[in-house]
């Protein structure tokens, strides 16, 4: 197995992307929150919000630095591990990949300016304006990269003539059918993950007995974000399911262990599969639900896996990842809903310890949810790298040294993964909120 470049390339791609995506998601998700915090701070002349914006930005900068590093690695690694894939996609889908670099550029320039100009403008609103290009830039990079990933699932915009790619239409390829549902889901789930991480830090501090109103404001701002974006994510997650039913039915069928094409299809949660009998044991069955999820109607016919030759079936274990994402998504939406109710209905205490504890674990949980969503998407595309055109096994490098390289990268990610939280904690504990607030008041 170690000698097989295909398996090793898949593992290395998986490890690199799984690491990068954490930083990338937070890189997309956090800017809108420091931008909003700064705006509120300026409008209400509230030093708490200004400090909040500053501290969130500081953490964000360190995450972005490592995100840039891992992103550069992926960008090159795709060519190193999947030369045939990049050769083919270079012909058809390089437009968004190319535009993504402009989005990075734009973001990088303004982040550089934003970070070092907190006190340089008389009118603070000018400084706030600088945060907008950061939000646009990071959202833009998600926009373009998601387009590439969508293309891998529904390749379009070219013809194949004797192995040559002809009649290339870059915009058709870029705005392929998978793109709308995928981009909206990726974007809102990134905002959601960002919000939950920020909320979970604030909740953790409150649990530790820090009662300064600063933390309450931080928690509240982040929780409103959680509420808004968890609803949005559940809604466009539903669209993603409907997209699959029409365009990638084998992925949805594998995720649902749905073998026979039938109408009034039932939904299965959890369970253990007996692959020979195609029967599920110990699962929870919800009648009609799959038809409703797929086509919004209980009578709709949902295509089953048996319509496809078995060698084209995606791995059936994506069922668990899909289940995990959906249940965790419901849980996250529920938590933020409860918080909002408790906050606005005076009879309840929004800061009760059990709720804070639930919020505190929701941050890491949202990361896991996002990861399992990606695993479901990427593994569910197997055996294709470009669905219908190029198989993973045909696209990998022929080099024999992938395993050794993988060891090197794993050591690197391991080191970064350990150092990153240590550095972050140190940055924030060096200057406590309370002392920073005291200092800041002098200036204001």
């Amino acid at each position, binding site marked *: 197995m170690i000698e097989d470049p295909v398996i090793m390339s898949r593992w290395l791609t998986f490890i690199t992307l799984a690491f990068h995506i954490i930083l990338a998601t937070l890189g997309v998700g956090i800017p809108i929150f420091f931008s909003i915090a700064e705006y509120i701070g300026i409008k209400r002349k509230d030093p708490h919000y200004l400090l909040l914006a500053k501290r969130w930005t500081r953490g964000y900068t*360190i995450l972005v630095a490592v995100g840039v590093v891992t992103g550069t690695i992926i*960008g090159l690694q795709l060519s190193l591990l999947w030369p*045939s894939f*990049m050769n083919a996609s270079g012909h058809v889908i*390089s437009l968004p990949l190319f535009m993504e670099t402009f989005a990075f550029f734009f973001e990088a320039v303004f982040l550089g300016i934003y970070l070092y100009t907190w006190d340089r403008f008389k009118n603070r609103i000018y400084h706030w304006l600088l945060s907008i290009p950061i939000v646009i830039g990071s959202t833009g990079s998600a926009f373009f990269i998601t387009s590439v990933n969508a293309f891998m699932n529904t390749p379009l915009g070219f013809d194949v003539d004797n192995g040559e790619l002809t009649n*290339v239409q870059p915009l058709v390829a870029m705005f392929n059918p998978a793109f709308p549902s995928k981009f909206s889901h990726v974007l809102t789930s990134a905002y959601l993950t960002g919000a939950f991480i920020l909320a979970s830090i604030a909740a953790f501090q409150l649990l530790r007995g820090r009662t300064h109103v600063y933390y309450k404001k931080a928690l509240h701002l982040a929780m409103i974000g959680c509420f808004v974006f968890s609803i949005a994510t559940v809604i466009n997650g539903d669209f993603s399911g409907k997209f699959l039913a029409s365009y990638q039915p084998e992925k949805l069928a594998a995720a649902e262990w749905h073998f026979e094409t039938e109408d009034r299809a039932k939904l299965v949660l959890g369970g253990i599969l007996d692959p020979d009998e195609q029967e599920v044991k110990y699962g929870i069955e919800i009648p009609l639900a799959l038809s409703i999820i797929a086509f919004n109607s209980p009578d709709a016919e949902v295509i089953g896996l048996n319509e496809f030759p078995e060698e084209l079936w995606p791995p059936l274990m994506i069922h668990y990842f899909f289940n995990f994402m959906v249940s965790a998504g419901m849980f996250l939406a529920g938590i933020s809903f409860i918080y909002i109710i408790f906050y606005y209905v005076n009879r309840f205490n929004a800061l009760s310890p059990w709720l804070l504890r639930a919020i505190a674990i929701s941050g890491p949980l949202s990361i896991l949810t996002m990861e399992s969503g990606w695993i479901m998407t990427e593994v569910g595309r197997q055996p294709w790298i470009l669905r219908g055109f190029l198989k993973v096994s045909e696209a990998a490098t022929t080099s024999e040294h992938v395993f050794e390289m993988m060891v090197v990268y794993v050591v690197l990610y391991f080191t970064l993964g350990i150092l990153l939280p240590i550095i972050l904690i140190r940055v924030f504990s060096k200057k406590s909120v309370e002392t920073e607030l005291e200092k800041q008041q002098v200036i204001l």
Partner: protein
Amino acid sequence: MIEYIGITVLWIFLYGYLIIASIDFGAGFYSFYAKMTDKKHTIRQVIDRYLSPVWEVTNVFLVFFFVGLIGFFPATAYYYGTALLVPGTVALILLAIRGSFYAFANYGARENNFYLFLYGLTGLFIPASLSTVLTISEGGFISVEGGDVKLLMGELFTSPYSWTVVLLAITSVLFISASFLTFYAKRAGDRDAHELMRKFTLIWSGPTILFSFLIFVTLRNHNAEHFNAMLEIRWIFLFSLLSFLTAVSLIYKRKRTGIAFIFVCFQFAFAFFGYGYTHLPYLLYPHLTIYENVTSPEMGIALIMAFIAGLMLLIPSLFLLLRLFIFNVEYARGEKKTY
């Protein structure tokens, strides 16, 4: 037409990366040097004030180059991608160490000599490892049998040409960044730093020009076709030499350090574009040419339009960055507050 626009744009970006990354890499090294020799209060502050706002921008130049290369000339992904797994990984690991440890050292809570050490040293190894891609493009280091592409490591490690390129890369980095920091220190009104960086510029000027010359000599044996093409436009390389002499004499006389740095840029521009121009039409000698391996016209035009639109966004923002930091005397002197 598309192939020419494509390669020109990419080469300009690579040139941009060469200059700003050299400043950045060299500055990291000098910063480490200053720390070790306890010159902390002179040049380190100057360097930090320059580096802090621009480090991320530097990296994007590189990303832009390789993403653009795959866009305009997709077959490069196949050939270079297959051949470069091991050296590419080395370069990536170095870049990764440098990027993250910069952030850890700079935004992290305390000064850490080990981080600075990694940061300073990787700055010299990265240009060395990246420059081998240019070496490989000269041909003779890759075997292509059937569809199977392999890098001939043995050849690479024993070739005089390849070692000269590595040495030139390192000395140029130290030279370019010293000449820039001479200017920046003067601008910031920091006499000690200015003197020190002036000394470094002069020290590294000799080796830089020596290795540039040796490149010609070794290339002649390695790829005579390219060597002859270079001889045909030797005037370009003479201009490069003249710019070099002007720059060094200005810095020696402590006059007009800004102009001197511009001449250093000219020196490398002449050499780099002369080299690139004569390298054409090959992207990888003799397997890939810009004519045969260019992308389809539809994609080419889309990329060019995206590029133009991107520039309209970027040039004003880069201008803003430069105005606020690099060309702002108060900022350079450290009089403006930062966070």
